[in-house]
């Protein structure tokens, strides 16, 4: 069977040279190389679970009266068809709630897997030439996943999704000069336009997944062409890659990771409640739940909105909204810096060479400090985005917490960067010392009866 398939394909496509090369392609075994694969398998899972959900979800703002019995508190309530169909998926479709929750969990894990994978790529310098190109593709993938997450979060038309959209509409309005046109054209009118659910649906299930699929294919094609990086070690050089062969060893490993990822997502979807929209109720623009939280990958932007100063400006009878700074300028700068970093680093270090061997974080204090500062900054904003919950937990006022984060967002990143720099430098000097003073020596007795130290070369 396999023999005939291979021969038939080779007859028609000349596939054998590629296959011979592909089957023994080397894949490094280090665990950190699996993080990107988790993201890839999340994409497969989210595509499959999402496809199932499309068969039941109605992207419609049309009003219906809820006549289901599963949520007594909502009985007889007027709501959008979208919200009612999410209730039906959750309560009247067998396995519907499992798949809906696993789908939502998958979005959270997907974004997390990408960010951890990117951190690995960043802190080990894997983004250096020639992989600077794939760094920009990967960063774009992260943005697309965040966008798909937010549009998906906004579809059920529940209390929190509506509030999230209201904030998105406000940020669009904050764009100078053309903001209200952007908001009106995107939403199909003033807020809350009945058009928006349908538009978000097209973006959520068609445009972004298509772009994701295309860019993931490109990401993998570039990876295939450029081959993997590897950590330095015995037999590992700039001009080779060592690892398990794709077939059979790595295939079996990677399929195991896929099955484990799917299992983990299903376990979360089955056991851990997420986005219980029946508790929030259908969206009425004049009501809101408190505390109000977005999904985690949007949380840092929500945090930025919370701690930003009220800097509105009035010019010639027009207003520049205070939302412009945290809502538009800040994410543009943040992601702009991440896109630019490979070239910034090349400019600063004047290192234009190819790099196939990875660095450990301590080997490059500048890069590590920048990465630590960026993660601290985003992390502080993420924490600030849940200051209302922390205020309840710790019995402090939310105002005090907001001030803590206002200061912390500015102070902690440089402090963390300085500490990271110090640690890197210490580790560098320790490694330099160890290279000069190899720890392992043998004592050799010389011909005259004295002893001499002789270093054992470290592997």
């Amino acid at each position, binding site marked *: 069977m396999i023999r005939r398939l291979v021969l038939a394909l080779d007859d028609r496509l000349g596939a054998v040279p590629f296959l011979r090369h592909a089957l023994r*392609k080397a894949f490094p075994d280090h665990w950190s190389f699996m993080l990107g694969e988790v993201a890839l398998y999340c994409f497969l899972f989210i595509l499959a679970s999402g496809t199932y959900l499309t068969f039941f979800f109605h992207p419609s703002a049309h009003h219906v009266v809820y006549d289901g019995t599963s949520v007594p508190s909502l009985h007889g309530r007027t709501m959008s068809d979208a919200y009612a169909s999410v209730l039906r998926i959750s309560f009247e479709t067998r396995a519907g709630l*499992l798949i809906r929750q696993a789908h939502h969990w998958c979005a959270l894990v997907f974004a997390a897997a990408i960010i951890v994978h990117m951190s690995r790529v960043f802190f080990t310098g894997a983004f250096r030439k020639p992989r600077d190109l794939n760094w920009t593709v990967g960063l774009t993938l992260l943005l697309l996943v965040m966008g798909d997450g937010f549009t998906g979060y906004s579809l059920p038309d529940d209390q929190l999704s509506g509030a999230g959209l209201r904030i998105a509409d406000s940020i669009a309005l904050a764009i100078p000069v053309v903001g209200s046109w952007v*908001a009106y*054209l995107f939403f199909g009118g003033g807020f809350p*336009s009945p058009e928006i659910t349908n538009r978000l649906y097209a973006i959520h299930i068609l445009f972004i997944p298509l772009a994701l699929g295309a860019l993931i294919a490109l990401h993998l094609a570039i990876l295939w062409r450029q081959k993997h990086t590897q950590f330095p070690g015995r037999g590992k050089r700039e*001009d080779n890659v060592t690892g398990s062969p794709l077939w059979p060893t790595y295939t*079996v490993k990677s399929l195991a990771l896929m099955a484990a990822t799917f299992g983990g997502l299903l376990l979360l979807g089955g056991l851990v409640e997420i986005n219980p929209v029946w508790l929030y109720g259908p969206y009425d623009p004049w009501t809101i739940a*408190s505390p109000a939280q977005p999904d985690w990958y949007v949380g840092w932007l929500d945090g930025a*909105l919370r701690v930003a100063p009220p800097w509105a400006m009035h010019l010639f009878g027009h207003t520049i909204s205070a939302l412009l700074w945290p809502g538009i300028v800040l994410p543009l700068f943040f992601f702009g810096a991440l896109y630019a970093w490979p070239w910034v680093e090349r400019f600063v270090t004047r290192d234009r060479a190819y790099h196939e061997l990875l660095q450990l974080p301590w080997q490059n204090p500048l890069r590590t400090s920048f990465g630590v500062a960026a993660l601290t900054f985003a992390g502080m904003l993420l924490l600030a985005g849940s200051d209302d919950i922390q205020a309840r937990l710790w019995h402090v006022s939310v105002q005090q917490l907001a001030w803590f984060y206002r200061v912390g967002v500015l102070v902690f990143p440089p402090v963390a960067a300085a500490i990271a720099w110090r640690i890197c430098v210490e580790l560098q000097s320790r490694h330099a010392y160890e290279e000069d003073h190899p720890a392992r020596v043998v004592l050799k007795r010389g011909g005259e009866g004295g002893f001499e130290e002789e270093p054992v070369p470290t592997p």
Partner: protein
Amino acid sequence: MNRSEKRGELHAALWLGLSIAGSIAFAAAYVLGGSTQAQGVALALACFGIAGALVTWSRELLPHGQVVDEQHPLRAPEAERADAVSRLLSGEAEIVGRRTWLVRLGWSAVGFLGLAALFPARSLGPSPQGQIGTSSWKSGLRLVREDGSLVRAELLEVGSVVTAFPEGLVGPDHAMNMANDAIMLVRVQQDALHLPDARRDWAPRGFIAYSKVCTHAGCPVALYRQGPQQLMCPCHQSTFDVLDGGSVVFGPAARSLPQLPLQIDADGTVRASGTMSGFVGPDAWETSSG
């Protein structure tokens, strides 16, 4: 077959048995209408079983040989690079030649086509002109609750609050109006108020109304803090002073809540006695006054 290989096979078989059991359990849970938890655990077991078997396979049954790929330079030899570039350039020269004016005209045509293609985008939504920051409130409109029932002054104690809308503009068909018309009607001690002179008679008997749409990001300013007499938005914690004309006390909002002037009829009906004091909702380019 040696001992360790046998043990490996046994382990893999156990994992696969677990997986099959998980799949059967899921099917049973589905057919019998089992809980989401049972379905999730069963299906997760089916996946974990396969994962466990594959891990066992790779750890105990597969060889651990490493392969080494040569990392060939990606860049082509200099001569080939130069040749590729010169082919591109000579092709371009053949297209352009001395016809630079024609090429410019060609790019203009493409540009015009792009502009023409933008026109249908205009159909995506109505013009925002004159729409941003407005509400339906006019002098004389009576205040009603969400369900359309009239707000009556005698039913509101000092220190209580109600969400109100203009009469005739509530219900599912008016969702877009309700989003911008919603007000928080608060009753406070009249002598505690310190409104600007121009607003002295906007809050008869301590009934005072503010737009419920936060001036920061449009969330409902739904939290009423009775002690300090503040309205607070749960989205980003912008806080506004009820007694002081809705001024910002704390948070990221840059502008006071618009106030709605009120009057109370002899029978206790509450009415608007004017329009909103300012721009309703979040700031936009069009926002003119503070």
